C-alpha cells in the first residue's frame, strides 16, 4: 500500500486544475491520455508519461511533440487544431477530438461515435436553451412556449424562438439578439452538466453514474486479487470516490445556481467567468474518467490476466483530484507548494540540475585535463 499512499499523497496531487491539465485523446500509444496545459508564457505544453514506463513525465511545448514522438496522422491533425485553440478545457478538447474523429482519422468506429456524440450534444444544447427560456418566460409572467410549433429537428428552430425573446426585452432592458446570445452561451455550458427538469441525461450525470459503476466493479474485482494489484485497484477506487464526492457537491452547487434563469443571467452578465467556473466544475472533475471507464469495460469479458494489465494501466492514468477541489467544498487544506514552484524551467542548452549553461561541459573538460 505504500505506492498507493505515495500516489495519493498531497505532494503528488496537483494544486489546481490548470496545473493538472486536460487529458487529450491521442491515439499514439506513447502519448495516449497525455495532459495539456498552459505554460508560464501561455503556450500549450504537453505532459506525457515517461515512455520507458518509469516514473516522471516528459514536459514540452505541444508543438515540439511532433518532433519527439512519431505521431499518428490523427494526432498530427489534432495537434494542429489544439494549437489553434484559444483556451484549453475538457469541453474544448472534446469538441476538437470529435471533429477530428468525424473526419475518419481515428477509424470508422470513432467516426460513427463522434457523429452520434456531436448530434447528441447539439440536441442537448437546444433542449437546454428551450428549458432555460421556458422557465425565464414563466418567471417574467409571460405566456409559455407553444411546444406544438417547436420541432427540435428543425434547423430554423432558433429563429422561431425569437418572438419569445422579444417579449423579455422590456423586463431585462436587453435587446432580443443580446438575450439570444446570452441564453445560447449559457445553454452550451449548462447542457453538459444538465439540470433537474432536463429530459435527457447530461454528459456529467452519465459519466458520474458510469464512474460509480467502475468504482463498484473495481472494488469487487479487487476483493479476490492479491496484495499489490489490490493496492492499485484501491488507489483507483480512492480517486474515484473522491471524484464522486466532489462531483456530486459541484453538481449540487451548479443546480443551486440554475434554480432561476433570471438570476442566473443576471449573475452571468455581471460575473460571467465566475458563473462559468461554477457550471464547468463537474466537467473538470469528471474529465479523464471516460477513457478509464471505457478501458475497464473493454476487458469486462476478458480473462483475469488481461484485466490485471488494465488495472495497472488504470493506476497510471487515474486522474488525481486537484487540491483546489477541496476548497470548492469549503474544506480547508494544507497549502501545498504548486508544482510550478517546485519545477525548474530549463532553456535550451542549459543543464537541468545546476541551471548553468552548457558551458558546464567546458568546465568538466578543464577538470579532466587537470586530472589526467
Amino acid at each position, binding site marked *: 500500500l505504500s505506492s498507493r499512499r505515495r500516489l495519493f499523497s498531497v505532494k503528488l496531487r496537483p494544486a489546481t486544475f490548470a496545473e493538472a491539465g486536460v487529458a487529450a485523446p491521442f491515439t*499514439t500509444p506513447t502519448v495516449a491520455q497525455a495532459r495539456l496545459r498552459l505554460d508560464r508564457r501561455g503556450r500549450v505544453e504537453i505532459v506525457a508519461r515517461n515512455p520507458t514506463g518509469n516514473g516522471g513525465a516528459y514536459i514540452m511545448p505541444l*508543438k515540439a511533440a*511532433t*518532433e519527439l514522438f*512519431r*505521431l*499518428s*496522422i490523427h494526432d*498530427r*491533425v489534432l*495537434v*494542429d487544431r489544439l494549437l*489553434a485553440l484559444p483556451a484549453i478545457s475538457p469541453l474544448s478538447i472534446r469538441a476538437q477530438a470529435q471533429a477530428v474523429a468525424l*473526419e*475518419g*482519422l481515428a*477509424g*470508422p*468506429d470513432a*467516426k*460513427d461515435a463522434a457523429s452520434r456524440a456531436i448530434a447528441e450534444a447539439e440536441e442537448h444544447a437546444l433542449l437546454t436553451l428551450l428549458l432555460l427560456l421556458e422557465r425565464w418566460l414563466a418567471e417574467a409572467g409571460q405566456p409559455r412556449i407553444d411546444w406544438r410549433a417547436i420541432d427540435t429537428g428543425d434547423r430554423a428552430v432558433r429563429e422561431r424562438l425569437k418572438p419569445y425573446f422579444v417579449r423579455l426585452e422590456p423586463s431585462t432592458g436587453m435587446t432580443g439578439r443580446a438575450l439570444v446570445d446570452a441564453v445560447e452561451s449559457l445553454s452550451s455550458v449548462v447542457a453538459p452538466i444538465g439540470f433537474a427538469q432536463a429530459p435527457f441525461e447530461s454528459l456529467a450525470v452519465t459519466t458520474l453514474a458510469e464512474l460509480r459503476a467502475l468504482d463498484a466493479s473495481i472494488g469487487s474485482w479487487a476483493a*479476490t*486479487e*492479491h496484495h499489490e494489484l489490490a493496492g492499485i485497484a484501491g488507489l483507483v477506487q480512492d480517486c474515484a470516490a473522491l471524484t464522486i464526492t466532489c462531483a456530486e457537491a459541484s453538481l449540487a452547487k451548479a443546480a443551486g445556481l440554475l434554480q432561476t434563469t433570471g438570476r442566473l443571467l443576471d449573475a452571468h452578465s455581471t460575473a460571467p467567468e465566475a458563473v462559468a467556473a461554477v457550471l464547468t466544475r463537474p466537467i473538470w472533475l469528471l474529465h479523464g474518467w471516460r477513457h478509464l471507464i471505457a478501458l475497464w469495460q473493454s476487458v469486462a*469479458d*476478458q*480473462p*483475469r*490476466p*488481461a484485466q490485471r494489465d488494465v488495472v495497472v494501466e488504470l493506476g497510471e492514468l487515474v486522474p488525481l483530484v486537484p487540491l483546489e477541489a477541496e476548497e470548492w467544498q469549503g474544506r480547508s487544506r494544507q497549502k501545498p507548494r504548486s508544482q510550478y514552484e517546485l519545477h525548474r524551467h530549463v532553456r535550451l542548452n542549459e543543464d537541468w540540475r545546476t541551471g548553468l549553461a552548457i558551458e558546464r561541459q567546458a568546465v568538466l573538460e578543464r577538470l579532466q585535463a587537470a586530472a589526467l
Partner: protein
Amino acid sequence: MSAIHGADGTLLDLLDRVDDQKLRRVIELIEASGQRPVLEPALAALRPRLRSLRPRRPLTLIRLVTAPFALALVDDASPHAFAAVRRGHLPRWQAAALDPLDPALATMVRELAATPGDDEHQAMLAAGRRLWPAAATALTTMAPAGEPAEDRLERLRVADCLALGGTLLPLLDRLLPIPALPDAEDRETLQAILAIAAEGPPDRLAIVAAMLLRAASRPWSLAAQLLELAPGALQGALRRVLERLLVAHRLDLERCLERQAEADTPIADYATAIERLAAALTLPEGTAQRPLGRDDPSPLRRPAAAMAMTRFAAALDGLLLPLPPPGAPARAAAQRAREAEARALSRLGRAVRRLAPDGGIERLIEEAVERLVDAGAARGKGRQLPVGIEDARLIEILAGPDIAWHYLRPHAGPAGPGALARRPPPAGRR
C-alpha cells in the same frame, strides 16, 4: 456425422463464423457444462482462435488433473511422440486418474477449487496438491492386461507429471511465458526445474525438457540456455534429449509450413502462425545463432518467408480493391474490414522481415502505396489531395504515419506542424 462436425450450418461452422466475443461466451458455456472433453476433437479446428481468446474455464476436476501434463500434449498426427502425451489418449488418462478417486477426496478437491480466493492459480495449486498424488498413484498402480509398451510408457509419464505437479507447476508459473532472454531470476528458476528433472525416472528429464521447449517461443534458443545452466553431470543426457526434441520441433515446423501453404485460413490467423514460426526460427537480437548438435532449423526461414510473401502479396491485392461509393451504407463496414486486414498484414510483414530481412516486403508495400495514390488521383481529377483519409489510414497501418502524413498533409491545412513540413518526402516516391 455429428451435428458439431459436419458441413455448413452445423454448430462448428456457425462457431467459425461468429465474432470473437460470441465464440468466447459459447466456449465458456461449454466449459461450464463440463462437455468440453467430449467436444474437444471437434473444437480442435478452433484452437488457434481460442488460444488468443482465452475463454474463462471453470476449475473442474478434469482440468485440474490435466494441468500437470498439459504442456506435454501433442496432436495425434504429430510425427513424434517423444516425451509427449497424445491428445487422443487424454480421456483415457483422465478417466484412469479420476475414476478410482475416493469420493470424499473428490468432494474436498472440488470445494477447494471452487473457493473464491486470490487467484485461480493458487486455487489450482491448493486443490491439485490434494488430487495429484492420488491420481499419480492410481495411474502407476493400474496394470491393464495387454497394454502396449508405448501406452505403458505414456501412462507412467503422465503419472510422473502428476506426482511432480505440486513442485513443478509453481516453478513453471513463475517462468511462463518463457522470456527470450532470461534474467538472473529466470535462470535460477530454470536451474531449479533442471534439478527436479535430473531426479526420478529416466524419462523425467525428457518430459520436463519437452514441456519447457513446447512452452518456449524460441525452442532453439532455450535449448542452448538449458545446456549452459545444466550441471556437468547432466550435460550429456540433456544434450541427447534436447537434440531429439529439436528434431521433433523442426519436423513440426515443416508440417506447420506445409499446412499453412495449403490452408485458406483468414489472414489474421495466418499472420499469427507465421509470427510463431518467425519467433521459433530466429534468435533475439544480440544473441548469436548457435545450432544445437546436427539440427539447424535456419534453412526453413527462406521457404517460410517466400511462402508468406506470396500470401502477403495476394492479400495486399485484395486490400487495394476500391471501397463502395461515398455515402453507401456498406462503405464504413468495408473500411473497417480493410483496416483489420491491413493490421494483420502489418503483423505478417513484420514476421516476414524477421524471417528474411531482405525479402522484399518493403517493395511490395511501396508499390501498394503507389497504387493507392494513383487510384486516388484518378478518382479525384483536379483535386489537390493525393489520397483520401480512408486510404491514408491504410497507408499509415502498412507503411507508417510519416508516409501517410506526406500524402494526407493537404487535409491538415497549410498550418501543419512545422517540423513535418520540413521533412523530405518518403524515399522512392515522386
